[in-house]
């Protein structure tokens, strides 16, 4: 193990205690903990559903319904909307603010997009329903609405110094009902077919493209690991043993391809294929099989996650967000305009609400007044379960996404095993409190702040 440390200049045997294989991976314990929690939850529900169908036998493992391609597919598209917003909530909470208006803002932006595509463009601009430009114009309108509302709230918080709690609590009431007002309380739909592709089951890549995306992602991941190592070597920094790097690369690639394999294993039901077999590349309905593969909404989430992670770790904007969370006065004294920074993070949150609104309304194929209800709490809970500290300065994008996944797994799992709705909410609430308690204990134990 340690004989592989030859490339690490500072890792001379004398100065460095012998490290175990596990330590040399330098893995993020918190990340492992969250992934572990997810698997415990998933395995628990899987065994429970298996047990109730097959009794205490091997069937427990094979008959379970949680860890099936179908359920995991559904889980991923159900998580997308909340996870997209949770990435933005990380920035907000890191900067010691809060946003209680995200669910309501999702409703307003969703209403803007729904009205644009079903009423404004067809009636006022004479674009016939189904015109290819309609979904895109609607999306631009929704994103604009998100930026404007987010910036307005950010300005009130950053420049007028009204606490974020109050501004967004007001926003919570205002934007839900602005959405109501725009649609006269009516359900708007069906939404444009192209627009609906962003929602989930009706918008997936199919088997071939899913593998291509998975392959590209794997290559990109390996390349990033490799180039990071090369830069560190070129600066003479200590690096991990090469074996550890290879192990991490292998785990990452296996995770990416495994995820794609699972989604590809979810086959389109025969009666769906029979209806439009030509769409699935078959001449006849006989012997025609097809897989759903990667949902577009999940790709949207992944793109958001990558962009937000790059902002957090590789841009000045992100550096200042975290610096302000750690010490607002110090950051101001180094010449950073923390007021404008506040406007920016709320503007980003507004855009993410709009993107989440695309995914959420497309998934249910129409806009309703109650879309996104209680999402503010799910989003905050996802960020907090994912390790974002309410005291500010600490949080990760991937943590928030896994947090959202854990929340959604609990909720879907409980629905699957038939837990009554009130109990579901009791459990989710308790898990939130428990997660924060565990986090505090973890920080205390490791001495991290």
């Amino acid at each position, binding site marked *: 193990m340690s004989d592989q440390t030859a490339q690490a200049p500072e890792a001379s045997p004398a100065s460095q205690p012998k490290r175990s294989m596990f330590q040399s991976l330098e893995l993020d314990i918190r990340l492992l903990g969250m992934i572990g929690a997810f698997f415990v939850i998933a395995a628990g529900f899987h065994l429970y559903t298996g047990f109730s169908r097959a009794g205490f036998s091997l069937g427990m493992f094979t008959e379970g319904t949680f860890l099936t391609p179908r359920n995991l597919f559904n889980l991923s598209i159900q998580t997308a909307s909340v996870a997209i917003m949770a990435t933005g909530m990380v920035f907000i909470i890191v900067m010691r603010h809060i946003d209680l208006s995200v669910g309501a803002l999702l409703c307003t932006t969703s209403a803007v997009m729904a009205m644009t595509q079903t009423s404004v463009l067809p009636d006022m601009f004479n674009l016939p329903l189904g015109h290819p430009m309609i979904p895109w114009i609607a999306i631009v309108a929704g994103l604009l609405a998100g930026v404007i509302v987010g910036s307005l709230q950010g300005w009130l918080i950053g420049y007028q110094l009204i606490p974020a709690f109050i501004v967004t609590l007001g926003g919570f009431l205002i934007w839900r009902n602005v959405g109501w007002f725009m649609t006269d309380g009516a359900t708007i739909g069906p939404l444009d077919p192209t627009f609906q592709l962003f929602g989930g089951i009706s918008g997936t890549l199919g088997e071939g493209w899913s593998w291509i995306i998975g392959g590209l992602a794997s290559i990109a991941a390996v390349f990033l690991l490799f180039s990071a190592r090369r830069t560190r070597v070129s600066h003479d*920094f200590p690096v991990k043993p090469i074996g550890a790097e290879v192990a991490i690369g292998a785990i990452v690639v296996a995770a990416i391809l495994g995820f794609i394999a699972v989604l590809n294993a979810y086959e389109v039901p025969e009666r769906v294929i029979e209806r439009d077999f030509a769409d699935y590349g078959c001449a006849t309905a006989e012997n025609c099989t097809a897989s759903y593969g990667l949902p577009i909404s999940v790709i949207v989430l992944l793109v958001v996650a990558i962009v937000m992670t790059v902002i957090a770790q590789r841009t000045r904007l992100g550096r200042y967000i975290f610096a302000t969370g750690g010490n607002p006065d110090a*950051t101001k004294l180094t010449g950073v305009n923390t007021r404008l920074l506040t406007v920016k993070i709320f503007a980003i949150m507004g855009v993410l609400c709009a993107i989440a609104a695309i995914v959420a309304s497309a998934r249910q194929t129409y806009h309703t007044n109650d879309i996104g209800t209680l999402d503010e709490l799910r989003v905050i809970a996802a960020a907090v379960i994912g390790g974002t500290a309410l005291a500010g*300065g600490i949080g990760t994008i991937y943590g928030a996404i896994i947090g959202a996944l854990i929340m959604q797994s609990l909720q879907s799992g409980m629905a699957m095993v038939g837990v009554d709705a009130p109990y579901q909410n009791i459990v989710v609430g308790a898990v939130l409190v428990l997660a924060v308690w565990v986090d505090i204990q973890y920080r205390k134990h490791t001495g991290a702040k």
Partner: protein
Amino acid sequence: MAPLVEMKNVSIAFGGVQAVDKCSITLEAGEVVGLLGHNGAGKSTLIKMLSGAYKMDSGEIFIEGEKAVINSPRDSRDYNIETIYQTLALADNLDAASNLFLGRELTTRLGFVDDDRMEAETRKIMARLNPNFKKLKEPVAALSGGQRQSVAIARAVYFNAKILIMDEPTAALGVHETEMVADLIKELKAQGLGIFLISHDTREMMELCDRVAVMKNGKMIGMERVEDVTEDDILSMIILGKNPKAVAA
């Protein structure tokens, strides 16, 4: 030749309180000027107008004879003024390199922050200032007071400050670390920097400074060369608010 810094009749009030009342002070290159006084005497406030943290109500600042306009920390920095604050202006959750370069990050050609290059530069300067400094990847919250102070000082040194403001740089440090900072002050002075030093430790000030200025209740009581006064003279200026030499003259 014009002094490196000249603050002329500078005043600032907070609400009804005249925190600094028509104070004047000068600083030459290669000189250490100490600011003494009780808590609330206005030392930090005076100096914060130079560092851009506060905007003065009236008065003028000249840097190398040119009238300077300092409305923000950024302006002050453009005049090569660096400040090391009493409360160590560090973001505890970030590592040493991120703190050193906070607000002036090195970037790649694509405009992304270049953490590796910043870490390399930080290693270089830390090897000079504090060879024991090893915790480059950890948040500065995990560092000792002296290590944190060396990050703050490294920030000033790295960016080639001409004028350095140190607001109680040794307040949170142990004996050994205090000596280290004292040595550093002497070295920077030898390099031709002008340094404003704020401290409560009169003896330390007598040792490090060329001149001392004493403030009380926002007013400048006196400014003397250290060899012309005794520690008792300074103490009586601090406590009584009178310059014994001026009275005697």
